[in-house]
Protein backbone atom coordinates (compact mmCIF):
# COMPACT_ATOMS: atom_id res chain seq x y z
CA UNK A 1 0.00 0.00 0.00
CA UNK A 2 1.24 3.41 -0.90
CA UNK A 3 -0.03 6.83 0.13
CA UNK A 4 0.87 9.75 -2.05
CA UNK A 5 -0.31 13.25 -2.70
CA UNK A 6 0.04 13.48 -6.44
CA UNK A 7 -0.25 11.32 -9.52
CA UNK A 8 0.69 11.48 -13.17
CA UNK A 9 -2.31 13.67 -13.95
CA UNK A 10 -1.47 16.19 -11.28
CA UNK A 11 2.13 16.43 -12.47
CA UNK A 12 0.80 17.09 -15.93
CA UNK A 13 -1.56 19.68 -14.45
CA UNK A 14 1.37 21.46 -12.86
CA UNK A 15 3.07 21.87 -16.25
CA UNK A 16 -0.15 22.95 -17.95
CA UNK A 17 -0.94 25.47 -15.20
CA UNK A 18 2.56 26.88 -15.40
CA UNK A 19 2.29 27.15 -19.19
CA UNK A 20 -1.14 28.82 -18.99
CA UNK A 21 0.10 31.26 -16.38
CA UNK A 22 3.10 32.28 -18.49
CA UNK A 23 0.85 32.60 -21.54
CA UNK A 24 -1.53 34.84 -19.58
CA UNK A 25 1.36 37.04 -18.45
CA UNK A 26 2.64 37.41 -21.99
CA UNK A 27 -0.84 37.81 -23.47
CA UNK A 28 -1.16 41.63 -23.18
CA UNK A 29 1.71 42.07 -25.65
CA UNK A 30 -0.35 40.68 -28.52
CA UNK A 31 -4.02 40.37 -27.45
CA UNK A 32 -6.66 42.94 -28.34
CA UNK A 33 -8.17 45.26 -25.75
CA UNK A 34 -11.46 43.45 -25.88
CA UNK A 35 -9.87 40.07 -25.15
CA UNK A 36 -8.05 41.53 -22.15
CA UNK A 37 -11.20 43.09 -20.76
CA UNK A 38 -13.15 39.85 -21.15
CA UNK A 39 -10.35 37.83 -19.55
CA UNK A 40 -10.34 40.22 -16.59
CA UNK A 41 -14.03 39.45 -16.14
CA UNK A 42 -13.32 35.73 -16.39
CA UNK A 43 -10.63 35.97 -13.67
CA UNK A 44 -13.11 37.70 -11.37
CA UNK A 45 -15.73 35.00 -12.04
CA UNK A 46 -13.19 32.32 -11.19
CA UNK A 47 -12.40 34.08 -7.91
CA UNK A 48 -16.11 34.35 -7.07
CA UNK A 49 -16.80 30.71 -7.90
CA UNK A 50 -13.76 29.45 -6.01
CA UNK A 51 -14.68 31.50 -2.95
CA UNK A 52 -18.30 30.38 -2.89
CA UNK A 53 -17.09 26.81 -3.37
CA UNK A 54 -14.74 27.24 -0.41
CA UNK A 55 -17.70 28.12 1.73
CA UNK A 56 -20.35 25.77 0.37
CA UNK A 57 -18.38 22.92 -1.11
CA UNK A 58 -15.86 22.47 1.66
CA UNK A 59 -17.57 24.16 4.60
CA UNK A 60 -21.13 23.02 3.90
CA UNK A 61 -22.27 26.62 4.39
CA UNK A 62 -24.77 27.79 1.79
CA UNK A 63 -24.82 31.57 1.86
CA UNK A 64 -27.25 33.64 -0.19
CA UNK A 65 -25.54 36.79 1.09
CA UNK A 66 -22.03 36.76 -0.39
CA UNK A 67 -22.99 39.99 -2.19
CA UNK A 68 -22.40 41.56 1.24
CA UNK A 69 -18.65 41.01 0.90
CA UNK A 70 -18.66 41.74 -2.81
CA UNK A 71 -20.38 45.09 -2.24
CA UNK A 72 -18.36 45.97 0.84
CA UNK A 73 -15.11 45.21 -1.01
CA UNK A 74 -16.07 47.72 -3.70
CA UNK A 75 -17.34 50.25 -1.17
CA UNK A 76 -14.20 50.04 0.98
CA UNK A 77 -12.09 50.58 -2.16
CA UNK A 78 -14.02 53.79 -2.89
CA UNK A 79 -13.58 54.95 0.70
CA UNK A 80 -9.85 54.16 0.80
CA UNK A 81 -9.02 55.77 -2.56
CA UNK A 82 -10.96 58.79 -1.35
CA UNK A 83 -8.23 59.25 1.25
CA UNK A 84 -5.72 59.66 -1.58
CA UNK A 85 -4.34 56.14 -1.62
CA UNK A 86 -3.50 54.48 -4.94
CA UNK A 87 -6.45 52.39 -6.19
CA UNK A 88 -4.38 49.24 -6.54
CA UNK A 89 -3.19 49.41 -2.95
CA UNK A 90 -6.76 50.19 -1.97
CA UNK A 91 -8.04 46.99 -3.60
CA UNK A 92 -5.96 44.85 -1.32
CA UNK A 93 -6.51 47.00 1.75
CA UNK A 94 -10.28 46.90 1.17
CA UNK A 95 -10.28 43.11 0.91
CA UNK A 96 -8.22 42.86 4.12
CA UNK A 97 -10.62 45.19 5.93
CA UNK A 98 -13.64 43.16 4.82
CA UNK A 99 -11.81 39.98 5.83
CA UNK A 100 -11.32 41.49 9.30
CA UNK A 101 -14.97 42.49 9.48
CA UNK A 102 -16.03 38.97 8.56
CA UNK A 103 -14.42 37.62 11.72
CA UNK A 104 -17.06 38.97 14.17
CA UNK A 105 -19.77 38.15 11.60
CA UNK A 106 -18.55 34.56 11.48
CA UNK A 107 -18.66 34.03 15.25
CA UNK A 108 -22.28 35.05 15.12
CA UNK A 109 -23.59 33.63 11.86
CA UNK A 110 -21.90 30.22 12.05
CA UNK A 111 -24.20 29.35 14.93
CA UNK A 112 -27.07 29.23 12.45
CA UNK A 113 -28.02 26.15 10.49
CA UNK A 114 -28.65 25.43 6.79
CA UNK A 115 -31.52 27.59 5.58
CA UNK A 116 -31.29 29.98 8.50
CA UNK A 117 -27.66 30.72 7.74
CA UNK A 118 -28.51 31.15 4.05
CA UNK A 119 -31.22 33.77 4.52
CA UNK A 120 -29.52 35.28 7.57
CA UNK A 121 -26.59 36.17 5.32
CA UNK A 122 -29.04 37.67 2.85
CA UNK A 123 -30.44 39.90 5.61
CA UNK A 124 -26.89 40.97 6.49
CA UNK A 125 -26.27 41.84 2.84
CA UNK A 126 -29.41 43.95 2.87
CA UNK A 127 -28.20 45.73 6.02
CA UNK A 128 -24.82 46.36 4.37
CA UNK A 129 -26.55 47.80 1.33
CA UNK A 130 -28.79 50.10 3.39
CA UNK A 131 -25.90 51.32 5.56
CA UNK A 132 -23.69 52.05 2.54
CA UNK A 133 -26.60 54.04 1.10
CA UNK A 134 -26.46 56.29 4.18
CA UNK A 135 -22.88 57.36 3.39
CA UNK A 136 -23.10 60.85 1.83
CA UNK A 137 -20.04 60.11 -0.33
CA UNK A 138 -21.99 57.44 -2.22
CA UNK A 139 -25.00 59.74 -2.80
CA UNK A 140 -27.54 57.00 -2.21
CA UNK A 141 -28.42 54.88 -5.23
CA UNK A 142 -26.85 57.44 -7.59
CA UNK A 143 -23.45 56.00 -6.77
CA UNK A 144 -19.98 57.28 -7.50
CA UNK A 145 -17.11 56.60 -9.89
CA UNK A 146 -13.66 55.41 -8.99
CA UNK A 147 -12.17 58.73 -10.07
CA UNK A 148 -8.69 57.84 -8.82
CA UNK A 149 -8.31 55.56 -11.86
CA UNK A 150 -8.21 58.64 -14.10
CA UNK A 151 -4.57 59.19 -13.15
CA UNK A 152 -3.70 56.31 -15.52
CA UNK A 153 -4.08 56.41 -19.31
CA UNK A 154 -6.77 54.07 -20.64
CA UNK A 155 -4.21 51.59 -21.96
CA UNK A 156 -2.21 51.47 -18.73
CA UNK A 157 -5.35 51.19 -16.70
CA UNK A 158 -6.54 48.17 -18.69
CA UNK A 159 -3.14 46.53 -18.33
CA UNK A 160 -2.91 47.16 -14.59
CA UNK A 161 -6.42 45.89 -13.90
CA UNK A 162 -5.72 42.80 -16.00
CA UNK A 163 -2.61 42.02 -14.00
CA UNK A 164 -4.32 42.83 -10.70
CA UNK A 165 -7.09 40.36 -11.55
CA UNK A 166 -4.62 37.72 -12.77
CA UNK A 167 -2.43 38.02 -9.68
CA UNK A 168 -5.45 38.02 -7.35
CA UNK A 169 -6.93 34.95 -8.98
CA UNK A 170 -3.64 33.03 -9.00
CA UNK A 171 -2.89 34.06 -5.44
CA UNK A 172 -6.29 33.06 -4.14
CA UNK A 173 -6.31 29.74 -5.98
CA UNK A 174 -2.81 28.98 -4.74
CA UNK A 175 -3.87 30.01 -1.25
CA UNK A 176 -6.93 27.78 -1.47
CA UNK A 177 -4.78 24.91 -2.75
CA UNK A 178 -2.43 25.12 0.23
CA UNK A 179 -5.30 25.73 2.62
CA UNK A 180 -6.98 22.54 1.41
CA UNK A 181 -3.77 20.55 1.70
CA UNK A 182 -3.10 21.88 5.19
CA UNK A 183 -4.39 20.21 8.33
CA UNK A 184 -7.38 22.53 8.39
CA UNK A 185 -8.17 21.72 4.78
CA UNK A 186 -8.03 17.97 5.31
CA UNK A 187 -10.32 18.54 8.28
CA UNK A 188 -12.61 20.58 6.08
CA UNK A 189 -12.80 17.89 3.43
CA UNK A 190 -13.55 15.40 6.17
CA UNK A 191 -16.39 17.66 7.32
CA UNK A 192 -17.61 17.92 3.73
CA UNK A 193 -17.77 14.16 3.42
CA UNK A 194 -19.40 13.52 6.78
CA UNK A 195 -19.62 16.07 9.57
CA UNK A 196 -20.56 13.67 12.38
CA UNK A 197 -17.83 11.23 11.48
CA UNK A 198 -15.28 14.05 11.30
CA UNK A 199 -16.50 15.32 14.64
CA UNK A 200 -16.10 11.92 16.21
CA UNK A 201 -12.42 11.69 15.31
CA UNK A 202 -11.73 15.06 16.84
CA UNK A 203 -12.07 17.55 13.98
CA UNK A 204 -12.93 20.97 15.35
CA UNK A 205 -15.51 21.92 12.73
CA UNK A 206 -16.32 25.31 14.23
CA UNK A 207 -12.77 26.64 14.06
CA UNK A 208 -12.11 25.32 10.59
CA UNK A 209 -15.38 26.69 9.26
CA UNK A 210 -14.54 30.08 10.67
CA UNK A 211 -11.26 30.23 8.77
CA UNK A 212 -12.92 29.19 5.55
CA UNK A 213 -15.65 31.78 6.09
CA UNK A 214 -13.06 34.54 6.54
CA UNK A 215 -11.03 33.36 3.56
CA UNK A 216 -14.17 33.36 1.38
CA UNK A 217 -15.13 36.84 2.62
CA UNK A 218 -11.65 38.15 1.81
CA UNK A 219 -11.64 36.63 -1.67
CA UNK A 220 -15.18 37.77 -2.49
CA UNK A 221 -14.35 41.30 -1.32
CA UNK A 222 -11.30 41.28 -3.58
CA UNK A 223 -13.54 40.19 -6.46
CA UNK A 224 -15.89 43.09 -5.68
CA UNK A 225 -13.00 45.55 -5.57
CA UNK A 226 -11.64 44.25 -8.89
CA UNK A 227 -15.10 44.47 -10.43
CA UNK A 228 -15.24 48.09 -9.34
CA UNK A 229 -11.85 48.77 -10.93
CA UNK A 230 -13.03 47.08 -14.11
CA UNK A 231 -16.46 48.76 -14.26
CA UNK A 232 -15.15 52.00 -12.69
CA UNK A 233 -18.50 53.06 -11.19
CA UNK A 234 -20.17 52.06 -7.93
CA UNK A 235 -23.94 51.86 -7.46
CA UNK A 236 -24.95 50.17 -4.20
CA UNK A 237 -27.96 48.51 -5.83
CA UNK A 238 -25.82 46.74 -8.43
CA UNK A 239 -23.04 45.61 -6.12
CA UNK A 240 -25.27 44.42 -3.29
CA UNK A 241 -27.58 42.57 -5.69
CA UNK A 242 -28.40 38.96 -4.87
CA UNK A 243 -27.66 38.29 -8.55
CA UNK A 244 -23.95 37.88 -7.72
CA UNK A 245 -24.68 35.05 -5.35
CA UNK A 246 -26.96 33.53 -7.96
CA UNK A 247 -24.05 33.55 -10.42
CA UNK A 248 -21.72 31.99 -7.85
CA UNK A 249 -24.25 29.27 -7.09
CA UNK A 250 -24.73 28.56 -10.78
CA UNK A 251 -21.00 28.30 -11.43
CA UNK A 252 -20.29 26.04 -8.48
CA UNK A 253 -23.34 23.81 -8.85
CA UNK A 254 -22.74 23.21 -12.52
CA UNK A 255 -18.99 22.85 -12.23
CA UNK A 256 -18.80 20.71 -9.14
CA UNK A 257 -19.64 21.50 -5.54
CA UNK A 258 -16.73 20.73 -3.25
CA UNK A 259 -14.26 20.08 -6.05
CA UNK A 260 -11.32 22.40 -6.58
CA UNK A 261 -11.46 21.96 -10.35
CA UNK A 262 -15.26 22.25 -10.32
CA UNK A 263 -15.39 25.95 -9.51
CA UNK A 264 -12.95 26.79 -12.29
CA UNK A 265 -14.82 24.63 -14.78
CA UNK A 266 -18.11 26.25 -13.67
CA UNK A 267 -16.69 29.75 -14.09
CA UNK A 268 -15.48 28.89 -17.59
CA UNK A 269 -18.90 27.50 -18.49
CA UNK A 270 -20.73 30.50 -17.02
CA UNK A 271 -18.39 32.84 -18.86
CA UNK A 272 -19.12 31.14 -22.20
CA UNK A 273 -22.85 30.98 -21.52
CA UNK A 274 -22.84 34.66 -20.65
CA UNK A 275 -20.83 35.58 -23.73
CA UNK A 276 -23.25 33.75 -26.03
CA UNK A 277 -26.63 34.14 -24.36
CA UNK A 278 -26.56 37.29 -22.21
CA UNK A 279 -28.17 39.15 -25.12
CA UNK A 280 -31.32 37.08 -24.65
CA UNK A 281 -31.86 39.01 -21.41
CA UNK A 282 -34.44 37.56 -19.09
CA UNK A 283 -34.58 34.11 -20.69
CA UNK A 284 -30.88 33.79 -19.96
CA UNK A 285 -31.56 34.33 -16.25
CA UNK A 286 -34.48 31.89 -16.33
CA UNK A 287 -32.11 29.37 -17.88
CA UNK A 288 -29.45 29.94 -15.22
CA UNK A 289 -31.98 29.40 -12.43
CA UNK A 290 -33.40 26.30 -14.09
CA UNK A 291 -29.97 24.76 -14.72
CA UNK A 292 -28.91 25.45 -11.13
CA UNK A 293 -32.11 23.84 -9.89
CA UNK A 294 -31.74 20.78 -12.11
CA UNK A 295 -28.07 20.38 -11.22
CA UNK A 296 -28.80 20.45 -7.51
CA UNK A 297 -31.54 17.85 -8.00
CA UNK A 298 -29.90 15.46 -10.43
CA UNK A 299 -26.16 16.16 -10.36
CA UNK A 300 -25.48 17.58 -6.89
CA UNK A 301 -21.72 17.28 -7.24
CA UNK A 302 -21.69 18.91 -10.65
CA UNK A 303 -19.97 18.00 -13.89
CA UNK A 304 -16.53 17.56 -12.36
CA UNK A 305 -17.71 14.84 -9.99
CA UNK A 306 -19.05 12.93 -12.97
CA UNK A 307 -15.71 13.30 -14.76
CA UNK A 308 -13.76 12.36 -11.65
CA UNK A 309 -15.70 9.21 -10.85
CA UNK A 310 -16.03 8.02 -14.44
CA UNK A 311 -12.45 8.60 -15.48
CA UNK A 312 -10.61 8.60 -12.16
CA UNK A 313 -8.87 11.85 -13.07
CA UNK A 314 -7.68 14.20 -10.37
CA UNK A 315 -6.02 17.29 -11.72
CA UNK A 316 -5.51 19.26 -8.56
CA UNK A 317 -4.31 17.01 -5.76
CA UNK A 318 -5.83 18.44 -2.61
CA UNK A 319 -6.22 15.15 -0.78
CA UNK A 320 -4.30 11.96 -0.17
CA UNK A 321 -4.33 9.06 -2.57
CA UNK A 322 -4.15 5.52 -1.42
CA UNK A 323 -2.97 3.04 -4.02
CA UNK A 324 -2.15 -0.61 -3.96
CA UNK A 325 -4.69 -1.35 -1.24
CA UNK A 326 -6.59 -3.60 -3.59
CA UNK A 327 -4.61 -4.81 -6.58
CA UNK A 328 -5.68 -3.13 -9.81
CA UNK A 329 -7.85 -0.50 -8.13
CA UNK A 330 -8.00 2.93 -9.65
CA UNK A 331 -6.31 5.58 -7.61
CA UNK A 332 -9.05 7.72 -6.19
CA UNK A 333 -8.79 11.01 -4.45
CA UNK A 334 -10.90 10.72 -1.35
Amino acid at each position, binding site marked *: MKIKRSNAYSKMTLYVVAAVFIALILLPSFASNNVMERLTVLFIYIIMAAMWNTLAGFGGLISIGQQLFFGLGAYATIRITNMGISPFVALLAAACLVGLLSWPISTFMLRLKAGEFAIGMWVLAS*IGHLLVNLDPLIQGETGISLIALNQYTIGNRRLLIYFAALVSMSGLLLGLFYLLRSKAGIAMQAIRDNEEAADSIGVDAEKVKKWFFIFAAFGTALAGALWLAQASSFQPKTYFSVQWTAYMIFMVLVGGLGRFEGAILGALLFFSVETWFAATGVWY*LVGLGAVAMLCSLFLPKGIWEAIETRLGITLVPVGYQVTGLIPDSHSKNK
Partner: protein
Amino acid sequence: MMNSLVQAILLGGYYALVACGLAFMFQVMRIINLAHGSLAILSAYLVWEITDALALSPFISVLMILPIMAIIGLLLQRVILERATKGGELLPVLTTFGLAIVIDNLLFQQFGANTRSLSPYLGDLSWESYEIFGLWIGKLPVIVLITAIVVIGGLDLVLRFTPLGRQIRATAFDPDTAGLVGIDARKIAAISAAIAMMTVAISGTALGLRGTFDAYAGGPQLLFAFEATIIGGASSLWGVFLGGIILAIAQSIGALIHPQGFLLGGHFMFLIFLFARIYFNRDVFSLKHWFAKRNKGENAA
Protein backbone atom coordinates in the same frame (compact mmCIF):
# COMPACT_ATOMS: atom_id res chain seq x y z
CA MET B 1 -46.93 58.44 17.61
CA MET B 2 -50.07 56.56 18.51
CA ASN B 3 -50.99 56.66 14.85
CA SER B 4 -47.75 55.09 13.68
CA LEU B 5 -48.08 52.38 16.31
CA VAL B 6 -51.55 51.48 15.02
CA GLN B 7 -50.33 51.54 11.43
CA ALA B 8 -47.40 49.33 12.40
CA ILE B 9 -49.68 46.75 14.00
CA LEU B 10 -51.81 46.72 10.85
CA LEU B 11 -48.71 46.25 8.69
CA GLY B 12 -47.61 43.53 11.10
CA GLY B 13 -50.78 41.69 10.14
CA TYR B 14 -49.50 41.47 6.59
CA TYR B 15 -46.06 40.25 7.72
CA ALA B 16 -47.71 37.61 9.89
CA LEU B 17 -49.75 36.49 6.89
CA VAL B 18 -46.73 36.15 4.62
CA ALA B 19 -44.65 34.52 7.37
CA CYS B 20 -47.11 31.87 8.51
CA GLY B 21 -46.72 29.77 5.35
CA LEU B 22 -42.93 29.87 5.63
CA ALA B 23 -43.03 28.96 9.31
CA PHE B 24 -45.57 26.21 8.68
CA MET B 25 -43.40 24.55 6.05
CA PHE B 26 -40.36 24.93 8.26
CA GLN B 27 -42.14 23.32 11.19
CA VAL B 28 -43.55 20.40 9.25
CA MET B 29 -40.84 19.67 6.69
CA ARG B 30 -37.77 21.42 8.14
CA ILE B 31 -37.41 23.29 4.85
CA ILE B 32 -36.94 27.00 4.45
CA ASN B 33 -38.49 27.64 1.08
CA LEU B 34 -36.45 30.36 -0.59
CA ALA B 35 -39.04 30.65 -3.36
CA HIS B 36 -41.66 31.63 -0.77
CA GLY B 37 -41.68 35.34 -1.62
CA SER B 38 -41.58 34.70 -5.36
CA LEU B 39 -44.56 32.36 -5.08
CA ALA B 40 -46.46 35.08 -3.19
CA ILE B 41 -45.73 37.50 -6.03
CA LEU B 42 -46.77 34.85 -8.54
CA SER B 43 -50.15 34.54 -6.81
CA ALA B 44 -50.50 38.33 -6.70
CA TYR B 45 -50.08 38.37 -10.48
CA LEU B 46 -52.55 35.51 -10.89
CA VAL B 47 -55.14 37.37 -8.84
CA TRP B 48 -54.46 40.50 -10.85
CA GLU B 49 -54.88 38.63 -14.15
CA ILE B 50 -58.17 37.02 -13.12
CA THR B 51 -59.52 40.24 -11.63
CA ASP B 52 -58.62 42.15 -14.75
CA ALA B 53 -59.83 39.58 -17.26
CA LEU B 54 -63.14 38.64 -15.64
CA ALA B 55 -63.87 42.02 -14.03
CA LEU B 56 -64.28 40.36 -10.65
CA SER B 57 -63.60 41.64 -7.17
CA PRO B 58 -60.09 40.61 -6.01
CA PHE B 59 -61.78 38.93 -3.04
CA ILE B 60 -63.50 36.53 -5.45
CA SER B 61 -60.38 36.01 -7.57
CA VAL B 62 -58.32 34.97 -4.57
CA LEU B 63 -60.83 32.19 -3.91
CA MET B 64 -60.28 31.04 -7.47
CA ILE B 65 -56.50 30.89 -7.17
CA LEU B 66 -56.50 29.05 -3.83
CA PRO B 67 -56.91 25.64 -5.54
CA ILE B 68 -54.34 26.63 -8.19
CA MET B 69 -51.76 27.45 -5.54
CA ALA B 70 -52.64 24.30 -3.61
CA ILE B 71 -51.85 22.25 -6.71
CA ILE B 72 -48.61 24.19 -7.18
CA GLY B 73 -47.80 23.34 -3.56
CA LEU B 74 -48.46 19.64 -4.16
CA LEU B 75 -46.28 19.65 -7.26
CA LEU B 76 -43.55 21.64 -5.49
CA GLN B 77 -43.38 19.04 -2.75
CA ARG B 78 -43.67 15.98 -4.98
CA VAL B 79 -41.45 17.04 -7.86
CA ILE B 80 -38.82 19.21 -6.21
CA LEU B 81 -38.67 19.25 -2.41
CA GLU B 82 -39.08 15.53 -1.88
CA ARG B 83 -36.09 14.80 -4.10
CA ALA B 84 -34.06 17.68 -2.68
CA THR B 85 -34.54 16.74 0.98
CA LYS B 86 -33.14 13.29 0.26
CA GLY B 87 -29.80 14.91 -0.57
CA GLY B 88 -29.36 16.50 2.86
CA GLU B 89 -30.40 19.77 4.41
CA LEU B 90 -28.44 22.01 2.04
CA LEU B 91 -29.93 20.95 -1.28
CA PRO B 92 -33.46 22.31 -0.61
CA VAL B 93 -31.88 25.72 -0.03
CA LEU B 94 -30.13 25.64 -3.40
CA THR B 95 -33.08 24.16 -5.26
CA THR B 96 -35.66 26.61 -3.94
CA PHE B 97 -33.27 29.49 -4.61
CA GLY B 98 -32.97 28.32 -8.23
CA LEU B 99 -36.76 28.09 -8.38
CA ALA B 100 -37.07 31.66 -7.07
CA ILE B 101 -34.78 32.93 -9.84
CA VAL B 102 -36.85 31.08 -12.44
CA ILE B 103 -40.17 32.43 -11.12
CA ASP B 104 -38.92 36.03 -10.74
CA ASN B 105 -37.55 36.21 -14.25
CA LEU B 106 -40.51 34.45 -15.86
CA LEU B 107 -42.79 36.99 -14.18
CA PHE B 108 -40.56 39.78 -15.44
CA GLN B 109 -40.65 38.30 -18.93
CA GLN B 110 -44.44 38.05 -18.85
CA PHE B 111 -45.41 41.27 -17.07
CA GLY B 112 -42.49 43.64 -17.59
CA ALA B 113 -41.04 46.16 -15.20
CA ASN B 114 -44.21 48.10 -14.36
CA THR B 115 -45.46 47.90 -10.80
CA ARG B 116 -49.01 46.67 -10.34
CA SER B 117 -51.60 46.95 -7.62
CA LEU B 118 -54.95 45.39 -6.90
CA SER B 119 -56.32 48.48 -5.17
CA PRO B 120 -57.82 50.05 -8.34
CA TYR B 121 -60.25 47.11 -8.48
CA LEU B 122 -61.58 47.77 -5.01
CA GLY B 123 -63.44 51.00 -5.65
CA ASP B 124 -64.05 53.01 -2.51
CA LEU B 125 -62.69 50.34 -0.18
CA SER B 126 -59.11 51.21 -1.08
CA TRP B 127 -59.34 54.53 0.75
CA GLU B 128 -62.28 54.13 3.15
CA SER B 129 -61.36 54.26 6.79
CA TYR B 130 -62.77 54.11 10.29
CA GLU B 131 -62.34 56.98 12.71
CA ILE B 132 -61.54 55.73 16.18
CA PHE B 133 -60.49 58.14 18.94
CA GLY B 134 -59.37 60.67 16.36
CA LEU B 135 -57.24 58.11 14.48
CA TRP B 136 -58.01 57.26 10.89
CA ILE B 137 -57.67 53.56 10.30
CA GLY B 138 -57.94 52.20 6.75
CA LYS B 139 -60.54 49.49 6.30
CA LEU B 140 -58.30 47.47 4.02
CA PRO B 141 -55.36 47.06 6.44
CA VAL B 142 -57.88 46.04 9.09
CA ILE B 143 -59.26 43.40 6.73
CA VAL B 144 -55.68 42.11 6.15
CA LEU B 145 -55.01 41.97 9.88
CA ILE B 146 -58.26 40.11 10.53
CA THR B 147 -57.43 37.73 7.67
CA ALA B 148 -54.07 37.03 9.30
CA ILE B 149 -55.78 36.24 12.60
CA VAL B 150 -58.33 34.03 10.87
CA VAL B 151 -55.71 32.17 8.80
CA ILE B 152 -53.34 31.60 11.71
CA GLY B 153 -56.17 30.78 14.09
CA GLY B 154 -57.64 28.39 11.54
CA LEU B 155 -54.31 26.64 11.00
CA ASP B 156 -53.82 26.42 14.74
CA LEU B 157 -57.25 24.86 15.22
CA VAL B 158 -56.68 22.39 12.39
CA LEU B 159 -53.32 21.40 13.88
CA ARG B 160 -54.74 21.01 17.37
CA PHE B 161 -58.10 19.40 16.92
CA THR B 162 -58.41 17.52 13.63
CA PRO B 163 -57.07 14.09 12.65
CA LEU B 164 -55.18 15.75 9.80
CA GLY B 165 -53.61 18.17 12.28
CA ARG B 166 -52.53 15.31 14.50
CA GLN B 167 -50.94 13.55 11.54
CA ILE B 168 -49.15 16.74 10.49
CA ARG B 169 -47.85 17.26 14.02
CA ALA B 170 -46.70 13.66 14.23
CA THR B 171 -44.91 13.94 10.89
CA ALA B 172 -43.26 17.18 11.93
CA PHE B 173 -42.11 15.62 15.19
CA ASP B 174 -40.63 12.47 13.70
CA PRO B 175 -41.52 11.35 10.17
CA ASP B 176 -40.10 7.84 10.58
CA THR B 177 -42.00 7.04 13.76
CA ALA B 178 -45.11 8.59 12.26
CA GLY B 179 -44.69 6.14 9.40
CA LEU B 180 -44.63 3.24 11.89
CA VAL B 181 -48.07 4.10 13.18
CA GLY B 182 -49.53 4.19 9.71
CA ILE B 183 -49.18 7.80 8.71
CA ASP B 184 -48.24 8.33 5.08
CA ALA B 185 -45.55 10.95 5.61
CA ARG B 186 -45.27 11.64 1.89
CA LYS B 187 -48.95 12.44 1.67
CA ILE B 188 -48.87 14.60 4.79
CA ALA B 189 -45.88 16.56 3.47
CA ALA B 190 -47.68 17.16 0.17
CA ILE B 191 -50.85 18.31 1.96
CA SER B 192 -48.80 20.60 4.20
CA ALA B 193 -47.10 22.14 1.17
CA ALA B 194 -50.52 22.68 -0.41
CA ILE B 195 -51.80 24.37 2.77
CA ALA B 196 -48.68 26.56 2.94
CA MET B 197 -49.15 27.61 -0.69
CA MET B 198 -52.77 28.57 0.01
CA THR B 199 -51.56 30.93 2.74
CA VAL B 200 -49.00 32.21 0.23
CA ALA B 201 -51.84 32.94 -2.21
CA ILE B 202 -53.67 34.93 0.44
CA SER B 203 -50.55 36.85 1.47
CA GLY B 204 -49.73 37.69 -2.16
CA THR B 205 -53.23 39.06 -2.59
CA ALA B 206 -52.90 41.05 0.64
CA LEU B 207 -49.67 42.58 -0.69
CA GLY B 208 -51.39 43.56 -3.93
CA LEU B 209 -54.34 45.07 -2.07
CA ARG B 210 -52.26 47.06 0.40
CA GLY B 211 -49.73 48.41 -2.07
CA THR B 212 -47.83 47.68 -5.25
CA PHE B 213 -45.72 44.78 -6.42
CA ASP B 214 -43.40 43.96 -9.31
CA ALA B 215 -41.71 40.85 -10.64
CA TYR B 216 -38.68 41.14 -8.36
CA ALA B 217 -40.59 41.91 -5.15
CA GLY B 218 -40.32 38.28 -4.03
CA GLY B 219 -36.89 38.64 -2.37
CA PRO B 220 -37.96 41.35 0.10
CA GLN B 221 -41.16 39.43 0.97
CA LEU B 222 -39.05 36.36 1.73
CA LEU B 223 -36.83 38.43 4.03
CA PHE B 224 -39.86 39.91 5.85
CA ALA B 225 -41.38 36.46 6.27
CA PHE B 226 -38.10 35.02 7.51
CA GLU B 227 -37.51 37.88 9.95
CA ALA B 228 -41.03 37.62 11.37
CA THR B 229 -40.54 33.87 11.76
CA ILE B 230 -37.22 34.22 13.58
CA ILE B 231 -38.45 37.06 15.79
CA GLY B 232 -41.54 35.03 16.62
CA GLY B 233 -39.42 32.05 17.56
CA ALA B 234 -40.65 29.69 14.80
CA SER B 235 -42.07 27.34 17.39
CA SER B 236 -45.69 28.39 17.21
CA LEU B 237 -47.82 30.14 14.62
CA TRP B 238 -49.06 32.71 17.16
CA GLY B 239 -45.41 33.45 17.89
CA VAL B 240 -45.00 34.20 14.19
CA PHE B 241 -48.03 36.51 14.35
CA LEU B 242 -46.41 38.43 17.19
CA GLY B 243 -43.11 38.36 15.28
CA GLY B 244 -44.77 40.09 12.32
CA ILE B 245 -46.11 42.84 14.53
CA ILE B 246 -42.79 43.34 16.34
CA LEU B 247 -41.04 43.53 12.95
CA ALA B 248 -43.47 46.21 11.72
CA ILE B 249 -43.14 48.23 14.93
CA ALA B 250 -39.33 48.08 14.69
CA GLN B 251 -39.54 49.32 11.10
CA SER B 252 -41.75 52.24 12.15
CA ILE B 253 -39.33 53.15 14.91
CA GLY B 254 -36.49 52.97 12.37
CA ALA B 255 -38.41 55.30 10.08
CA LEU B 256 -38.94 57.77 12.94
CA ILE B 257 -35.20 57.85 13.68
CA HIS B 258 -34.03 58.27 10.09
CA PRO B 259 -35.96 58.78 6.84
CA GLN B 260 -34.21 55.75 5.32
CA GLY B 261 -34.38 53.72 8.51
CA PHE B 262 -37.57 51.77 7.84
CA LEU B 263 -35.98 48.54 6.60
CA LEU B 264 -32.91 48.92 8.80
CA GLY B 265 -35.10 49.10 11.91
CA GLY B 266 -36.63 45.74 11.04
CA HIS B 267 -33.27 44.17 10.20
CA PHE B 268 -31.73 45.31 13.49
CA MET B 269 -34.67 43.98 15.47
CA PHE B 270 -34.17 40.67 13.66
CA LEU B 271 -30.47 40.67 14.62
CA ILE B 272 -31.27 41.46 18.25
CA PHE B 273 -33.66 38.52 18.46
CA LEU B 274 -31.20 36.28 16.65
CA PHE B 275 -28.46 37.34 19.04
CA ALA B 276 -30.67 36.70 22.03
CA ARG B 277 -31.66 33.30 20.68
CA ILE B 278 -28.07 32.27 20.06
CA TYR B 279 -26.41 33.57 23.21
CA PHE B 280 -29.15 33.23 25.80
CA ASN B 281 -31.73 30.61 26.49
CA ARG B 282 -33.05 29.60 23.10
CA ASP B 283 -36.68 30.17 23.85
CA VAL B 284 -36.67 33.12 26.23
CA PHE B 285 -37.98 35.07 23.28
CA SER B 286 -40.81 32.77 22.32
CA LEU B 287 -44.34 33.25 23.58
CA LYS B 288 -44.48 29.66 24.75
CA HIS B 289 -41.75 30.25 27.29
CA TRP B 290 -43.60 33.06 29.02
CA PHE B 291 -47.01 31.44 28.91
CA ALA B 292 -45.66 28.15 30.14
CA LYS B 293 -43.97 29.92 33.04
CA ARG B 294 -47.10 31.85 33.99
CA ASN B 295 -49.19 28.71 33.94
CA LYS B 296 -46.70 26.94 36.15
CA GLY B 297 -46.84 29.85 38.56
CA GLU B 298 -50.62 29.66 38.68
CA ASN B 299 -50.53 25.94 39.31
CA ALA B 300 -48.10 26.39 42.14
CA ALA B 301 -50.30 29.06 43.67
